[in-house]
């Protein structure tokens, strides 16, 4: 077969790099760099043994039939990471000041800050995406029967994560401090209060007093950006640990392959 002519690439790119030891003894710069990287990884691994943990976490056996539905959990996690990163940077501009500063700071982010509208939009719409993904992930787990033994504890952790996601949605809704945020929070806190016996105290806890007061907004802000995200991150860690430890389930429609000997005896 005739060979195609070599493309007219620049000289430095033409020669294929010789394998280590094959060359004329000279070590090229990029080989130095590669060896440097390997040396750094080795140095860290020798002192932490992290490569074993990484192998344990990432090179797992997955059942036959694993499909796109199994990516909903990762998608939810990336939605949370999006919320975390955009939220951290929104916190650089946001002021939890109920006497007008909160609304003004959100207006400033939206209208004046470079990419502010985009980052705030990612946070705002990302919250809805996260709730949707949580429910899809939950539905996948339910319909595939992936909550059954030995994965019940992971289902319980997932339910707690769902509740915490709802807490995030509720507390974050107040922060823009416009009319919708204010009245939605009034209604939401009063819905909490309709729980018998403990409800009225829960309302007082959320508002930091009997009426919507001076510290209600900062209370919601602290819960929204410090308390609950820490809990969610910790519980996602536990959730992932159990996934890696217990493995994933096969889809309900996939049948176990029979032992070849049994198959022969059946024939």
């Amino acid at each position: 077969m005739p060979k195609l002519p070599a493309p007219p690439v620049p000289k430095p790119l033409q020669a294929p790099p010789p394998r280590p030891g094959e060359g004329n003894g000279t070590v090229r710069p990029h080989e130095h760099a590669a060896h440097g990287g390997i040396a750094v990884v080795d140095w860290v691994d020798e002192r932490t043994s992290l490569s074993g943990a990484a192998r344990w976490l990432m090179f797992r056996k997955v059942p036959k039939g694993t499909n796109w539905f199994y990516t909903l959990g990762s998608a939810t996690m990336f939605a949370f990471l999006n919320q975390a990163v955009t939220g951290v940077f929104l916190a650089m501009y946001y002021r939890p000041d109920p006497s007008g500063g909160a609304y003004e700071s959100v207006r400033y982010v939206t209208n004046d800050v470079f990419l502010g509208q985009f980052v705030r939009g990612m946070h705002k719409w990302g919250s809805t995406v996260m709730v949707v993904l949580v429910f899809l992930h939950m539905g996948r787990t339910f319909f595939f029967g992936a909550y059954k033994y030995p994965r019940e504890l992971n289902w319980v952790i997932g339910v707690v994560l769902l509740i915490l996601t709802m807490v995030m949605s509720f507390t974050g809704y107040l922060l823009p401090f416009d009319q919708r945020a204010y009245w939605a929070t009034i209604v939401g806190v009063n819905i909490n209060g309709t729980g018998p016996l403990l409800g009225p105290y829960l309302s007082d806890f959320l508002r930091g007093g009997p009426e919507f007061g001076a510290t209600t907004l900062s209370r919601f802000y602290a819960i929204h950006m410090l308390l609950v995200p820490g809990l969610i991150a910790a519980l996602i860690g536990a959730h992932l640990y159990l996934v890696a430890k217990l493995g994933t389930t096969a889809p309900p429609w996939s049948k176990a392959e029979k032992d070849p000997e049994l198959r022969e005896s059946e024939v």
Partner: protein
Amino acid sequence: MPSQHDKHPSKYTLDRRIPGAFEGETVTRRRFMTGTAHGAGAIAALSFTLPALGFAIGPIFKSTPHRWETAGPTELFPDNNYIPVVITLTPGIGEAGKTLVYVRRKNPAIDTDRYDRTMPYIAITSRCAHLGCPVRWVDAAERFICPCHGGVYDLLGRPVGGPPVRPLDRFYTRVVDGEVQIGSRFSVNSELRRFSPRDPGEPLDGIGQYAYPSRPSIRR
């Protein structure tokens, strides 16, 4: 392996052949040190979690001060129609701390309930007793109407339609130097009997007054 020590168990460590134990010791030093370390850790952890927790839930038990807000001169308010007045519930936070109150002079022909004989003016909150949306007084219909979920109240603030579970809350009123003043909020049940202020959505008839107790933060 059974020994004479198993037959006669003793609480003293020496009898249990624990090496290095002193005569008369009832707890080994290792157990003692373990317990001390755990106890010290628990004390250290509680010394910041308990105050922080109390700090966070403290407002539940702190009572809010009693305030009087001036609504306007007495001649401003008729006895057959409501005048909307904006008062400050929470000072220091601007518009977010204000609320709308509907005020009229007491009318013996209308206000015939047996519980409220002392207050010269009727001040009704704009917070819907369903979930706290702002109700609007519609003069032509002589009804308070809530925009959120369709709650409707009559002239006295008693629910006549929609989801509200009790009448609209009221405020204490008094007259000082010809000015009507508005004080603290209180809740009423369907007979307009007075109760400590409750949040919206909490019924006060029958078992409701016990299922939704008054709170120390706003009990009067």
